[in-house]
Each structure stands twice: as structure tokens, then as C-alpha cells.
């Protein structure tokens, strides 16, 4: 059996890839994908440790996280759509009418 620590390392790696993508990409859609990666890193942990602890709490919560990720993308795509209509681009660095 694969030791539990390996799952932690895998999840941390996936999470870091997500963070890296989020910091380096300017396309809003790629930003959304990076966030998906980070949420799925959480799901890896939840599923692996659900097995480790022998209860289904983690797996159940994993399902909730997936559903929420989908809902978040739905709202996010809507916002990116109005962004495109107003700025004619989906580049997150274009929208700078206000100061950061």
C-alpha cells in the first residue's frame, strides 16, 4: 500500500502547480484552470485520508468541493464574458481602470 505521506506530497505538488499557473498566466480562463488544480489537490488529500482514517467524511466533502468548483466556474465564466464585452480581451492585466 502507498504510504499516506506520498499522497500529501502529490497533493502539495498539484497545489503548487496551480499556484504557479495562477501567478504566471494572464489569461483569465487559464487562471480558472489553475484554481481547479488547487481544488483538486484538496480532493486528493480528502479522498486519500478518507481511506486512511476509515471514514467517508473526506470523500463526501470531496463531492461538495467538486460541486462548488463547478458553481464557481459557472459564475467565473459569466464574469469573464462581461469582461470580454467591456475590454475585448480575457487578459486579467488589461482591466486596470482603477489602481490596484
Amino acid at each position, binding site marked *: 500500500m502507498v504510504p*499516506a505521506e506520498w499522497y*500529501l506530497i502529490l*497533493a502539495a505538488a498539484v*497545489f503548487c502547480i*496551480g499556484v504557479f499557473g*495562477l501567478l504566471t498566466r494572464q489569461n*483569465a480562463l487559464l*487562471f*480558472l484552470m489553475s*484554481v481547479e488544480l*488547487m*481544488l483538486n*489537490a*484538496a*480532493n*486528493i*488529500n*480528502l479522498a*486519500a*485520508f478518507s481511506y*486512511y*482514517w476509515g*471514514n467517508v*467524511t*473526506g470523500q*463526501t*466533502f470531496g463531492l*461538495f*468541493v467538486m460541486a*462548488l468548483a463547478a*458553481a*464557481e466556474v459557472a*459564475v*467565473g465564466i*459569466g*464574469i*469573464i464574458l*462581461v*469582461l470580454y*464585452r*467591456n*475590454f475585448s480581451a480575457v487578459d*486579467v492585466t488589461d*482591466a*486596470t*481602470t*482603477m489602481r*490596484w
Partner: protein
Amino acid sequence: MVVYPDWAALAPALALAVTGLVLLLIDSVDPDDSRPGLLAGTAVVGTLVSLGYAGWFLASGTGQVDGGTGAISLYRDALVVDGMALFFQAVFAVVTALVCIASYDYLKERAYQAEFYSLVMFAATGMAVMATANSLATAFIALELASLPSYALVAFLKHNRGSVEASLKYFLIGALSSAVFAFGISLVYAATGSLLLADVASALSALDGGLTGVAAIGVLMVAGGFAFKTASVPFHFWAPEAYEGAPAPISAFLSSASKAAGFAVLFRVFTTAFPLDAAGVDWMLLFQVLAVVTMTLGNFAAATQETVKRMLAYSSIGHAGYALIGLAAWSGGAPGSVENGAVLGASMAHLLVYGFMNTGAFLFVALAEQWDVGRTFEDYAGLGSRAPMASVAMTVFMFSLAGVPPFGGFFSKLFLFAGAVDAGFWWLAAVGVVNSTLSLYYYSRVVKALWVDDPVGEFELGGTPTGLYVAVVFAAVGTLLLLPGFAPVIETAQSVAAALVP
């Protein structure tokens, strides 16, 4: 005597959810927004019902320790209704009611009014559930329920570039922080094998070496998720943008209700689930640093702003710093001792007062936007003689936010700083006092513009928006009434906070 089922204790949250659904129903029957009064009226009635339930439960002792039923656990402890939950639900209901009254005028001639009100209701439902969340799972889902409608509401003016940009930034940072939050929860679950706050606490206390580091990183990441919701450093970047670009009633809603909701769940999770000596990380030190940095950064940035709305946004970050003192000075002393609740309760009372004065201030900005007078301090010059009633109200808000003596904000800050001193953190109180003094500078700039400065050019105010006026004046009356009424508020807050501490 009628015996109510346990789930009836969720009435304040249920009332908001049902109102949201009723609004959608009205919209499907009458889709062309021809009755704005009906929509606004339904929303206001729904929030008042929610407020009524929360007030009634608080008064009758539901879920409270003193002369009540004790905390009511629902759905296998996933939710808990206690005094703190009801206190915060009352705050959310008040703010939501004010926002709905004000939105009636703000939304005139705009499409999608029913969607606006129902999104506000669903976000408020999420906040009400956040206050009752007793498991990391419900905390996460309620937080998202409050966040997702907020993103859409910020982008409500979809042909306005500022509004869309604000929403994008709010959404990007929100999505990032919810991913961090979810990963933190997964690490806490990895270390403890449970998501229920009480079980997490006992598992952390029994933790053996290996997983302590995992738990500590998890706790830090969970704190990050809450920092986003409360607009504290390091996830505060969205706040000035979102508050400036959003429709002003939504800015009021986000900066008052949404922030209070973040604090509600932050207080419960950290006091219940992460015992100081076993969490693997000294989170009190973390919040002390965050409190100092947040209030200093918020106040200094606010002092350099040119537009009133952005100044209020930074001042809102500053106030998040004050409220963080409640957790930063939480001593975790002997079980059940009174001192433990004192500073936490003062922080909750401050959030209630803040709910009135900050909502009122943003609604005054909404009024100014309605009149089209401009955004900077100079543009507000001479409003005092043209709109005396609203300007008096704004003056009350400004002095109350600054914490000048005869207003509600003074007492809540006094109790907060006194509580910090009692808990042995005099330096936190000192930083708070210095920041409050600084804040008087930029708050009084607004007052000076309103009453002293001469207007640059001649301008006429377009009409008198009744709803906005009513909301602004009501918020001012609330701020003033909290002066004689502060004793019961602080007593309630401190007793429910003491009940929270194990």
C-alpha cells in the same frame, strides 16, 4: 405549549432563503420588473422577519446558556444555533434590510431587479449559515454560498467597466482564497480525520508528532481563507477595488455584512476547533501581527485617498484590524471564565455598531452617486446646505467611525481596547488608539467638505430618493440609539461570547 422542532431554530436563515425563492417566483410571474416596489417590499419584509426571529430567539434565550435551552446542535452537529449565531444573524438582517431599502431607488430604471434582490437574499442566507457553521464542511459551503452571489452582484452594472473590473478582481482573489481554504481544510482533515469542530479540537489535542506540521499548515491556510472574507491582510487586495467599482448599496452590503460573517465563522472555528496549545501553531501571535498590520495599512492607505468611496473601502480594512483584536487578545484562560468572553464580545459589539455606521456611510455615497455630484472629497463641498438631513447623518457616521466620544463607535472601541488591556495586550490597544486618532484626519475631511468648504460650481440635486433617505436616516438613528442602548448590546455580546469559549 407548542413544542417547536429543533430545525425551527434556523428560522432567521430560512426566512432569508425563502424570501430569495419568493422573489424569483414573483419574477417568473411578472418578468418585466414592472413592480419595483413589490420586489423591494418583499425583500425588506423578508429581512425584517429574519431580524424578528433572531431578536425573538435572543430575547427568549433560545440556544443560550443563561436561562435558555443551551446551544442547539442540528444535523449531527454540522450546524449549531447559539447566542453568537443569533447575534450575528441579527446584524446581517439589519444590514440587508438597509441595503434593500436603499436599492429601491438605486435600481430604478435598471433591469434585472428581481435577480438583484434574490442574489442579495441568497448571499445573506449564506452569511446566516456561516454564523451557525459547526463543521469545516458547512463553514466552507456557507462561505461559498455567501461569496458566489456577491461576485455576481459586484458585476451588476455590466456595462460599466469599473463594476466589471471590480468583480473580476474580487472573483480572482476569492477563487484563489477559497482554494487555499479548501486545501487547508483537507490538511486539517488529514491530521485529525474529522471535520466537526469539536472532534477536530479533541483530535488535535491527542495528536502525535508526525502530523503536527500538517495540521499547522492547515490551520494557517484556513486562516487565509477567512482573511479573504474579512478583508484582512494578506488577502485584502480585492476590497478597495470591489468596494469602489460595485454599486454603492452592494459595497455597503459587502463591507458590513460580509465582513461580519467572516468574523462570525472565524471566531467560532478558531476558538472551538483549534486549541491554542495543540494546533501546532501559535495562532494568537498570528492574529496579533495581522491585526496590527491590517489596521495600520488600512488607516494609512485611507488617509491618502482622493475619492470618498475608496477612502471608506480602506477604512473598512482598518476596521477589520480592530475587530481582529477580539481574537488576537483572546486569552484562552480558565474554562468558562468571564474574561475570555470580554474582548471577543467587545469585538462582536463593534461589528454590530460598524454594521450601522458603515452601511450608512456607503449608502450616503450611493445617494451622492444618485445625485451625480462626483466622487472626490471636493465634489462633496456644499452638500451640507443642499441636503442637510443626509449630511447630518453622514457626519454622525464619520465621527462614529472615527470613534469620537458621544457616538456608538466610541463605546465599542472603548470596550474593545479596554478588553485588550485587561487581557494583557496593552500594546495592541495602543496601536489601535494611534490608528483611531489618525483615522479622525480623513473622516473629518468628509465633514469639512460637507459643511465648511464652498462648492466649486453651481449644481442642482436631482430629486429626493425616498428609499435612500430613509435607509441613511435609519442607519444614523441606529448609530445614535446604540449610545443609550449600548449596555444591553455589550452585555449580550459578551455573554454569548463567553458561552462560545469552552
